[in-house]
């Protein structure tokens, strides 16, 4: 597409041949000639993108009617536009439109006849919950917006469309509640989206990487979810969602670190239970990356910290292992990562076999062979389980990566290494800001009010809904 606009030619033939040339004489570009009231007309459409029944009902039927009417009121498709710009015609063709040319009229018609093939609305597999709505986003933006609108029937819900990409364009939607979202954040999001200059946007991940504040940080700064109820909850709290046509993932922003540890289940359970499970999840954050480090530091530096009986137990199984604890841990972690990745890419029936072979056979044999000690197996297994407790896949992966530097620090400097490693981690988290919002709130800056819905969940009536437009809260 070199020229941004191209005025149409005089004859149908010229127009059609221009379109055919522009679309490389592709075989699925169909041209159908008809006569209406003695005038030669031509329908042009891409077969693979057009719905045959719509074409027949709303375009061909009206055209074949005997009584002549004005063209502009003839077509019964939902959208029927007139244009004289062939470039616009090409764009519309690629979006499933049918073009109608007629000799003697210096304009043509763009008729909306796209075909839709959509998967049914099912619960996303990686974000299943126990109670609550069991629907999920699918690969169609309009269906996704439908799912959102249906739950949020408020006039404040605002949707803004943007075209992303230069070679192939994708429709993106920025969704927010006008009275809840902070103006500043919305403005930042929109200006960043408009600045994206990639040739093609394939995944939501592309958008995320183009608009996030700190691309060099390990931590995800947008919450990715495929759940409409999750998205709606955030929208109602003044967050902004970005969705891409053809992708079931919603990007939610600005989010804090702790958003990745919340699930819709928290709000369907009774609040005490919900608080308990949330605390368990927080504990899993600590365990997921610190446990191996603590173990390494303990056995290689500070074994005097262990009470005497425990010391003998641990020491007894350690004496048979020829490697230093770090190597031992890295070996097991490597095995675990291999198993995880293998299980992920295989069909689920074979995946189970992998789990049995990996977990039982290798785990048992590796200790019997004297390569790894039993306590280390326990530690690594606990770590692995903890890392799966995190509801967000992105955050889970980030935390899984974190334990490697911490393990190395622990093996170099013992407990001091761990505390310094954690200090660096928390300094980094304190530094992160997402769209002008501190990422580690409500821990840093410390706002006790925010704790009501962070580590625990207070009863719903204490979580006051606030309108952010009127009082913009800043640290």
């Amino acid at each position, binding site marked *: 597409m070199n020229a941004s606009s191209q005025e149409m030619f005089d004859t149908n033939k010229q127009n059609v041949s221009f379109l055919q040339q522009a679309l490389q004489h592709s075989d699925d570009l169909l041209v159908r000639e008809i006569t209406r009231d003695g005038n030669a007309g031509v329908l042009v459409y891409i077969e693979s993108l057009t719905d045959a029944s719509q074409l027949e009902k709303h375009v061909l039927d009206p055209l074949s009617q005997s009584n002549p009417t004005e063209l502009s009121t003839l077509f019964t498709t939902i959208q029927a536009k007139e244009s004289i710009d062939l470039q616009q015609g090409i764009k519309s063709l690629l979006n499933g439109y049918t073009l109608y040319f007629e000799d003697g009229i210096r304009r043509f018609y763009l008729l909306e006849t796209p075909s839709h093939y959509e998967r049914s609305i099912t619960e996303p597999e990686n974000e299943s919950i126990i109670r609550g709505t069991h629907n999920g986003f699918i690969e169609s933006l309009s269906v996704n917006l439908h799912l959102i609108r249906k739950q949020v029937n408020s006039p404040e819900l605002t949707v803004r469309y943007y075209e992303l990409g230069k070679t192939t364009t994708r429709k993106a939607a920025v969704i927010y509640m006008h009275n809840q979202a902070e103006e500043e954040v919305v403005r930042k999001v929109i200006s960043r989206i408009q600045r994206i200059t990639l040739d093609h946007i394939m995944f939501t991940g592309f958008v995320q990487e183009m608009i996030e504040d700190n691309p060099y940080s390990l931590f995800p700064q947008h919450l990715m979810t495929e759940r409409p109820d999750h998205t709606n909850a955030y929208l109602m709290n003044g967050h902004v969602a970005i969705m891409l046509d053809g992708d079931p993932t919603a990007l939610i922003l600005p989010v804090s670190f702790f958003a990745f540890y919340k699930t819709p289940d928290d709000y369907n359970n009774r609040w005490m239970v919900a608080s308990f499970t949330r605390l368990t999840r927080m504990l899993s954050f600590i365990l997921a990356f610190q446990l191996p480090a603590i173990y390494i530091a303990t056995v290689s*530096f*500070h074994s*005097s*910290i*262990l*009470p*005497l009986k425990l010391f003998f137990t641990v020491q007894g199984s350690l004496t048979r292992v020829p490697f230093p604890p770090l190597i031992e841990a890295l070996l097991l972690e490597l095995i675990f990562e291999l198993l995880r990745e293998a299980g992920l890419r295989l069909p689920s029936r074979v995946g189970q076999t992998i789990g049995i072979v990996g977990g039982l056979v290798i785990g048992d044999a590796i200790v019997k062979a004297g390569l790894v000690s039993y306590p280390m197996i326990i530690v690594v297994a606990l770590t692995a389980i903890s890392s799966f407790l995190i509801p967000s896949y992105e955050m889970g992966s980030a935390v899984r990566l974190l334990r490697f530097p911490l393990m190395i620090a622990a093996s170099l*400097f*013992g*407990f*001091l290494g*761990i*505390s*310094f490693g954690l*200090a*660096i981690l*928390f*300094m980094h988290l*304190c*530094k992160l800001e997402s769209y002008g919002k*501190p990422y*580690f709130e409500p*821990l*840093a*800056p*410390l706002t006790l009010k925010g704790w009501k819905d962070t580590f625990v969940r207070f009863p719903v009536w204490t979580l006051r809904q606030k309108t952010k437009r009127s009082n913009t809260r800043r*640290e």
Partner: protein
Amino acid sequence: MAKMEKTITARQLFFLVIQTQIGVSVLKIPHKVNEIARGGSGISIIIAGLITQALILMMWLLLKKYPGKNLYQILLGMAGPIFGRILIVSYAAHFILLGANIMISATDIIHRWLLVSTPKWVLLALFSYLAYFLAREKLSVLARFDTLACLLFIPLVLFVGYGLNEAHIENMLPLLEQGYFKIFTGAKDVTLAIYGFEILLVVYPFIKADNKQILWSMTAANSFTTFFYLFVVEVCLLAFSHDQLKLMPEPVIYLMKSMNFYIFDRADIVFVPIWSITTICSLVSYVYSAALGFSDIFKKSNHHLFSALSVTISFAIAFVPVTPSAMEKLDKIAEYMAYVFIALIPLVLLLISLISLKKKEGR
């Protein structure tokens, strides 16, 4: 000149100040005070707290007269560009020296208690890197981290409080064994440990609060530190006798060492890493203050490079003294420098500003 954005709240100031005040010396203070004041150590600490409060009041009076300016800019305005810059450099040197002092003591303690065979320069490098990592950031990030790190006081207080199990009231009696004079001299040693409130001189224009709130949070911070020290010292005095304390340079760690909980023995191994984080916080404050001074001299709005510079100098200084007597000498230098920079110069500035304001009113 750095653009003065109001970035921290009065509450964050509170945490910033206590983190700057409470550093290495918390481990040593019971030993030091006990040498002079014995049973009256607690009184010494309260006296030191009161002196500090007076100094805070003085600084506050000075800063109040120059809204939107910190000490460096006041110096530049008052003493002229050349002499002012010399003064700023000496202030920065003072902060760097204090930073180096912290690093020396901290690495010394870690070297003796935790990582016996790790070379000291490695520990110094670790401290330096961490200090640089945080000191190059905005003040609001510093304040956030300090606030977060204050959560560590909870385990610290619990650990130290556990030492009350071994308390014997007769250990700390009689209170006035050494006489009032000794108790006052003891207060002088404590004052060194309470230093850190001078960070107010540097961060004053960044605080998003009115003067009254600032004074309140400074007072609250100082009281917190004083009472924290008081608590630590009294626990140590109760748990150990004078003769024992004389032999222990870091009585708090000894106290930890003797404890055992059911899941772990040797609480000192957990205690020292936690304590080292609060040490880093005060180190960071000093490095940041020095870096801010440099950026004021060179009229740069960015202090990245200068914090790297300050950390490097601190590292170099901390590298020099290897013998205990050299360390003690450095301690003494830092102490006397502190008298000049924290008490004398602000006092002179305050007097000058009072006189000059009087003159203006007279006209």
